[in-house]
């Protein structure tokens, strides 16, 4: 009672499940042709043409220090829109949209060690699964300040 329920888009990187607030997701796309942009950080894969708009795309694996893998039919680009900045993140696959109670989300400290805490808002326990909630603003914070 009294706690807020929010919808989250759940996606996978390797065996781990991640989630992001659905209100910040514009659309989920299959893999599109990506044009590399030189002189950008390694995790910026390049830009795509999303129906006439040029959108930068981030390799989430690289961003989270996880080795890149071959793209396949399941690979998706999630287009995020935060503070009027649009960008895409490449994920291994997108599984579902679920409702998570705010109370289910625990602070990340002590639970995860292998990825940079900065990009994580918290971890939600859904049944036996642990879902890492990504902070999509933080993911691009280094670029915005340039």
């Amino acid at each position, binding site marked *: 009672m009294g706690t807020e329920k929010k919808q989250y888009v759940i996606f996978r990187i390797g065996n781990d499940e991640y989630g992001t607030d659905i209100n910040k997701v514009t659309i989920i796309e299959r893999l599109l042709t990506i*044009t590399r*942009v*030189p002189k950008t950080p390694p995790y910026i894969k390049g830009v795509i043409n999303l129906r006439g708009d040029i959108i930068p795309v981030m390799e989430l694996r690289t961003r989270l220090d996880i080795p890149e893998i071959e793209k396949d039919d399941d690979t998706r680009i999630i287009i995020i829109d935060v503070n009027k900045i649009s960008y895409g993140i490449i994920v291994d696959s997108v599984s579902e949209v679920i409702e998570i109670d705010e109370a289910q989300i625990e602070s990340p400290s002590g639970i995860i060690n292998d990825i940079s805490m900065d990009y994580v808002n918290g971890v939600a326990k859904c049944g036996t699964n642990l879902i890492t909630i990504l902070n999509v603003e933080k993911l691009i914070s280094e670029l915005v300040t340039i």
Partner: protein
Amino acid sequence: MKINQYLDIFVEESKEHLQELNTSLLILEKDPANTSVLNEIFRVAHTLKGMAGIMGFNLMATLTHHMEDVLDGLRKGQVKVTTEVVDVLFQCLDALEDYVENIMQTNSEGEKEYKEITEFLEQISNIRKSTEVSGKPQISKAAGQKPNIDGEGFRLNYNIYDKNVMEKAFEESLNAFEIYIELDKRCLLKAARAFIIFQILETHSEIMKSFPVVEDIEDEKFDYYFTVMIISKESAEFFIKELNSVSEVRDVQVKQITEESIKGMVLSSDDDTNQSKENNIKHKANKTPKTDATEKKKISSKTVRVEIDRLDVLMNLVSELIIIKTRLDDITTDYRSKDYDQTVENLERVTTSMHDAVMKVRMVPIESVFNRFPRMVRDISKELNKEINLNMSGEDTELDRTVIDEIGDPLIHIIRNSADHGIETPEERISKGKEPTGNIWLRAFHDGNNVVIEVEDDGKGIDINRVRKKILDSGFESEESINGLSNEEIIQYLFEPSFSTSDKITDISGRGVGLDVVKTKIEALGGNVELISNYDRGSRTIVRIPLTLAIIQALLVMVGDEKYAIPLSSIFEIYNITPKDIQFVRNQEVTLLRDTVIPIIRLHNILDIEAEEDMENKQLTCVVVRKGDKLSGLIVDSLIGQQEIVIKSLGKLLAGVRFIAGATILGDGNVALILDINSIV
């Protein structure tokens, strides 16, 4: 009626009027005897007053009213055009601009009253009032004569036609009245008041005649009173009551015309009859003065105000269309027939013309930016006791609206530098053997796909040696390396942000203050700045900016397996070289283009693309690009072809990326990056 809806128009028009006033006032200052300019100023000020009055901006209206008083005095020769008067008029304009600015931002004019200005204006106009011999001057001969007000006679002259109409009216037992209406002398919008009065009269009667004629009243060509003859079934008392309820009406006199009284009526001549018949017919046909006014407006206005946003939408649509056209063009030949090719060709023609047309709509003469400079230079020269002549040319050069909005500030900076630090004082100039009056030239012209704006002065220029010394002192270059630098390269240092903040430089050259800001701004527009200076002879700043920011012709090239676009406007020529043609000068690869040595830039290297080893006889494609007067050769793998491309931004996230000016969408839907020649070279 919602005032808000008109606010934008009011602000736009006010700005235009103020600009006009500024320009005219400058002319008047130079040529005080120019009555046509003076009349123009008076006219514009009057319009401004009217507009402010309608919108209920009373402070603004009051200020313009005072201003008008002075202008009227100038017109009549009771006040002389002195620097003092012109100065205070300029102050008025500034104050009015502040009001408009306030209105634009807050929808209200604010509360500042500019007491000192109004008091001073009053002082001036009081002087003239005391010199005025006979009472209020008559506005125009026809409208000025006051009708006789003795009880028996008629105020208006009637002809046989009017008499017939009245007789008819009496037969139908209607009343005829002659109504004299006097407005308050403080009424700002006489025509508007008169319009209201006419509307009241028209709902209850038929207006047969008026003096002055309706057209003159609409144009405010009357003093404070007018007389109408109407036919109505209402009584005299009714009209007295109705008309007195209108505000700013000082006096209403209604006189009933009876059958008796018209018997002895003196009729005016036939000429008049015809004319007034015409008037009457015209008036009836138009029914209300309002339609008459709108009709006039229709003829005079051939322009439409369009919000820039709407043009942007149109521009985007045209861009999309061009992308689709390119796509059709790229469809493989298997599907193509002759018909198809022809249709695509036609489509191409239409889209190209359409693009041109839309671009033209967005084009604005640079005049709107240049306009403010004469005033600015005048103010600076007054302040610094210098004599400066501003010579402008090419004001009609057109630029994209988006560029116009951005170019103003950098230009202000450059001109201010020239006036403030470039031009010497008259004494200094005389001692140098120059004319005491300094000159600043402001020129704009087209050069290919660019617009060039030059600011030149014949002031003291830049002391290269002192700049060299400064570079050494600040440790930017070593003693050794600085000797290898040309004067042009030395001057480039003035555009460095860290360099320009130094006060010392400001003292010796006057340049450098904010030049980096100028450079950043111009480069953000896809342009570049160049500074040429001759010590003691003057300097010249050359700003080059692209005509349009949205759609350009570009050459598509392959580097590795990536496609890049190079703006055609910066390409000088393309030729093939072999590795043998490349030599090294101070660790820099160079080649010989006819007689000139040009540096070679390998795009593979700067774009982090793996390149194959140069084979002995491998043909290298060298795209020679130009930045200002400087040429450089870019090595690419192959050329794809020339194409019209739509420039898209990389978005906020990647906006700062080096070497890349933007992106474009190719016919196959993929993205190609546009190289930023200015930062590569």
